[in-house]
């Protein structure tokens, strides 16, 4: 293994990839300013889909998923299903309606729909918390990758990575780098699938479509080494599988940075169709992740390596890279794979830190603390908030509480327990009011963290609301509370109900 010392060639390739995004972004900015005017150009449904997919892809998709599949086999497919099936909920229940509602961020929607600045404030706090948890998972991925690239330990890797990623966000912001999400997605998909094709070829499996050709490898694993990768309930019960899967689904349909995607496309019809393309592009990666995990198990078994469970868990989040190393891929190709993972984590962090910071300066500071704040003050506050948020994330990430995908799942559980019910009832039940949504969201926060809070002395709580899967019972509970409290208190203002009926649901009548 090449664990000792820095991995120079991959490091150079990662650096080149990150630099090329800055160069491409600057060129695109120069071009769009002269040729296309301020509005920018329309990128079409497929381009919109690529943008949805690259907005979605993070270290959890490119590293975390492979790691959990490597550890838990079939059980971890709950992540594959949860993170694709959630898009069905998002499309059928929310996409068109939130767009017709015409609010761009989750706090704006909640504040306006429920005619309550307080509800908006709570949802802003929740959104920022979701960003912090989500970023923690990304920082863990960045830290492990940097530790591997520079041949140092995790602690140094995550500190170095944090400095570089914050620097990258600030430099991109100062230079005004335009995000080219189509280019990002192209890098991600090529970097993830090309090494997989070579691995499949080297191992003697169907390499043209490695996503669909690793079935024989599962059987070989069982026949030659007695490793049953596909046993359905070896790592978790039916309840654990379904509750995890359901949580990730409602979380997908409640994540603030995913919900705001629907405003980028000019009309609803195109927004709906680009979501289908987005889901297809996401699935291309998710069909491939299990193949990495199977090949990792196979390569380990063939070389006689047998890791202790603790050691396996420590390296699991880097298993995609390790598989490429074990499979003897050339360093430049491993570099491309690492570049894909690093950029996915970087762009996710950039997006979340910037939204989190602007939510702080706009939804909290401007609306509640100082409504007369000037644009300059708000901007300065945003920049400070980026650094402050990154600092909080770094502190948490120094001692990461779990695997990348597990940490991310907590962010999904929080979204599924709070934002999802607020949007669902906000769109589909005109009677839901501010008392209901405030009671519901606060309950949702308590439910999300009830396992670590109360699980110690109430084991039942930890069984019903497991930390990564609390929304299975959590979201219905929150919905029930929202309905109950809303019915006991006066209805929301007439103009809100009328707007909902006429503009959001009656636009065609």
């Amino acid at each position, binding site marked *: 293994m090449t664990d000792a010392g820095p991995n120079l060639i991959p490091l150079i390739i990662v650096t080149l990839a990150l630099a090329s995004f800055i160069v491409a972004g600057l060129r695109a900015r120069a071009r769009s300013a002269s040729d296309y005017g301020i509005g920018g150009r329309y990128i079409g449904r497929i381009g919109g889909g690529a943008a949805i997919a690259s907005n979605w892809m993070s270290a959890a998709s490119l590293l975390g998923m492979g790691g959990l599949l490597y550890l838990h086999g*079939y059980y971890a*497919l709950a992540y*594959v*299903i949860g993170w*694709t*099936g959630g*898009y*069905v*909920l998002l*499309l*059928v*229940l929310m996409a*068109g309606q939130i767009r017709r509602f015409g609010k761009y961020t989750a706090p704006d929607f909640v504040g306006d729909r429920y005619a309550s600045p307080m509800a908006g404030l709570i949802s802003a706090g929740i959104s920022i918390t979701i960003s912090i948890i989500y970023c923690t998972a990304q920082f863990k991925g960045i830290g492990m990758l940097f530790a591997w690239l520079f041949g140092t330990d995790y602690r140094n890797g995550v500190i170095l990575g944090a400095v570089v990623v914050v620097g990258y966000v600030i430099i991109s912001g100062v230079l005004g780098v335009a995000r080219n999400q189509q280019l990002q997605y192209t890098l991600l998909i090529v970097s993830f699938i090309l090494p997989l094709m070579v691995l499949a070829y080297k191992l003697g499996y169907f390499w043209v479509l490695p*996503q*669909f050709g690793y*079935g*024989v490898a*599962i*059987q070989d694993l069982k026949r030659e080494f007695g490793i*049953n990768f*596909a*046993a*359905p*309930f*070896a790592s978790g019960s*039916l309840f654990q*599988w*379904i509750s995890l*899967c*359901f949580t990730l689904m409602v979380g997908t349909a409640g994540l603030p940075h995913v919900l705001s995607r629907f405003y980028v496309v000019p*009309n*609803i*019809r195109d927004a*709906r*169709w680009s*979501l*289908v393309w987005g*889901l*297809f592009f996401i*699935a291309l990666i*998710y*069909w491939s992740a*299990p193949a990495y995990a199977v090949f990792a198990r196979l390569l380990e078994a063939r070389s006689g390596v047998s890791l202790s469970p603790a050691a396996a868990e420590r390296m699991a989040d880097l298993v995609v890279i390790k598989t490429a190393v074990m499979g003897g891929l050339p360093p430049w190709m491993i570099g491309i794979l690492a570049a894909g993972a690093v950029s996915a984590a970087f762009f996710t962090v950039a997006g979340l830190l910037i939204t989190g910071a602007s939510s702080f300066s706009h939804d909290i500071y401007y609306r509640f603390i100082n409504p007369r704040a000037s644009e300059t003050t708000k901007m300065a506050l945003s920049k400070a908030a980026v650094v402050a948020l990154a600092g909080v994330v770094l502190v948490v990430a120094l001692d990461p509480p779990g695997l990348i995908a597990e940490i991310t799942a907590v962010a999904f559980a929080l979204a599924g327990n709070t934002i999802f019910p607020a949007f669902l009832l906000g769109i*589909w*039940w*005109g*009677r839901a009011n501010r008392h209901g949504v405030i009671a519901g969201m606060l309950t949702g926060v308590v439910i999300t963290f009830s396992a670590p809070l109360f699980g110690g002395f109430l084991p039942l709580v930890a069984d019903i609301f497991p930390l990564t899967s609390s929304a299975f019972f959590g979201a219905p509970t929150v919905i029930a509370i929202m309905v109950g409290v809303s019915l006991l208190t006066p209805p929301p203002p*007439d103009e809100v*109900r*009328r707007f*909902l*009926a*006429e503009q*959001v*649901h*009656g*636009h*065609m*009548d």
Partner: protein
Amino acid sequence: MEHDREWYDVNIFRPRKGYMTGEVVIILFVLLGWAVANFGVQAILWLLSETPQGEGILTRLTFLSFPWHFWFTAQFLPLWFIILCILFNIYIDRHTEQHSRRKDRSHD
């Protein structure tokens, strides 16, 4: 006044006459297909399991060299979600066009 209030009540279980009724029907069909394929098949897998690990007829059958249940969950379900989204979009497009023709205005 009472009548007026009912007119602007939004409730997914009592959809308003017109566009919303058709929309809710399409939504419910898609959600049914989503829930049955996803949670239903996992439940069947559990019902048919013969060992604590979940081995059973569905794990012994193979499809494209995959154990059947693994193929279904890892490969078919994401595809099924894409199919559901396509069906939803086709039907909503059609539904929207019918109503926009009635109202004589371009859709969206």
